[in-house]
């Protein structure tokens, strides 16, 4: 029996309003959001409404990442398709629980969500962008098969400086 939402360490599930406590904590933790495009602190109300804003589907597939062994939520990941004709989706990922930043959870999440995108959503291409100084993330993306496609200069202003965004892409057949 195929387990499209399950990796070796984690599984993906839909977001629930009952996830508000950890999402509220993660989105207001600079040690989490410094790696992301998110800039502003958020209220519990905002997070709660956002969590209620839709189940995973072809327009947007957002997931909670939880550990396989004890179902502990450790982060979130999402695929955001554009025009269906291009069969391309943008990928966003964050590990909210600091102690799971090492140990292969991010890598396993990447592999699981990319496999889901390719095999279940019939995507042809998955793309992402990442701060050029986030070398740990870049190494993970390379390891699972993403290729460097270029650098957008001064593409984001955050915390008093311009950032260079590395663009990476993964095509069908390249996932490792």
């Amino acid at each position, binding site marked *: 029996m195929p387990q499209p939402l399950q990796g070796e360490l984690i599984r993906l599930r839909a977001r629930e309003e009952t996830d508000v406590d950890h999402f509220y904590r993660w989105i207001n933790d600079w040690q989490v959001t410094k790696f992301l495009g998110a*800039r502003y602190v958020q209220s519990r109300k905002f997070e709660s409404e956002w969590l209620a804003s839709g189940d995973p589907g072809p327009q947007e597939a957002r997931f909670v990442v939880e550990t396989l062994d004890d179902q502990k939520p450790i982060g979130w990941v999402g695929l955001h398709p554009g*025009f269906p*004709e*291009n*069969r*391309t989706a943008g990928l966003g990922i964050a590990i909210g629980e600091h102690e799971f930043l090492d140990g292969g959870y991010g890598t396993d999440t990447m592999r699981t969500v990319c496999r889901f995108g390719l095999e279940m959503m019939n995507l*042809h*291409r998955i*793309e992402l962008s990442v701060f050029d100084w986030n070398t740990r993330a870049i190494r993970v993306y390379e390891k699972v098969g993403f*290729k460097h*496609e*270029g*650098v*957008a*200069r*001064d*593409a*984001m*202003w*955050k915390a008093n400086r*311009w950032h260079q965004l590395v*663009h990476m*892409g993964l*095509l069908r057949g390249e996932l490792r």
Partner: protein
Amino acid sequence: MSQAKAEPTSTSYAESPYEGRLIRLRAREPEDEQLLHEWFNDPEVTEHLALRYPLSHRTERGFIERMSEVRYGNASFAVETLEGRMIGGCGLEGASPENRSATLGIAIGDKAYWDGGYGTDTMRVLCRVGFEVMNLHRIELDVYANNKRAIRVYEKVGFQLEVTKRKALYKFGQYHDIHIMGLLEGELKLED
């Protein structure tokens, strides 16, 4: 105000930022609908644009309605010759105040104006509006990798090829690469 200030006298302030050597930008008007409908149903015009399906008059009217208020997040223009003939459209969309960046789009729909520098002049005027009016720091655009003529124009005015998204577009039965090109404050070239 205790006393009147002298009007700034720098050349760039004395001239309209919306006017170049060959073209000027103006807000879109309902009367533009007929030409837009003609152009954006012409496969020669849409070959390099993100358009696939036929467009109705109703859709064009709605587009003009949405775009006719020029503002920061939606700076959309008709391009006309200095004599007042509309030849295309362009815009800076999705401007982000924090990142001071926006995405550029341009189409010269009147094929009689495809050579002769109208596209280049439109690019220069639009980017100048982006930097000097909107206070942008970065302007970026997507261009299909096989659109060599457009890429040459973008490079001529100072854009740099930054990213090649492999097989990111499906059109005409196959996948194509898309380039992202970027232009930062201070990089716009106003002379050939």
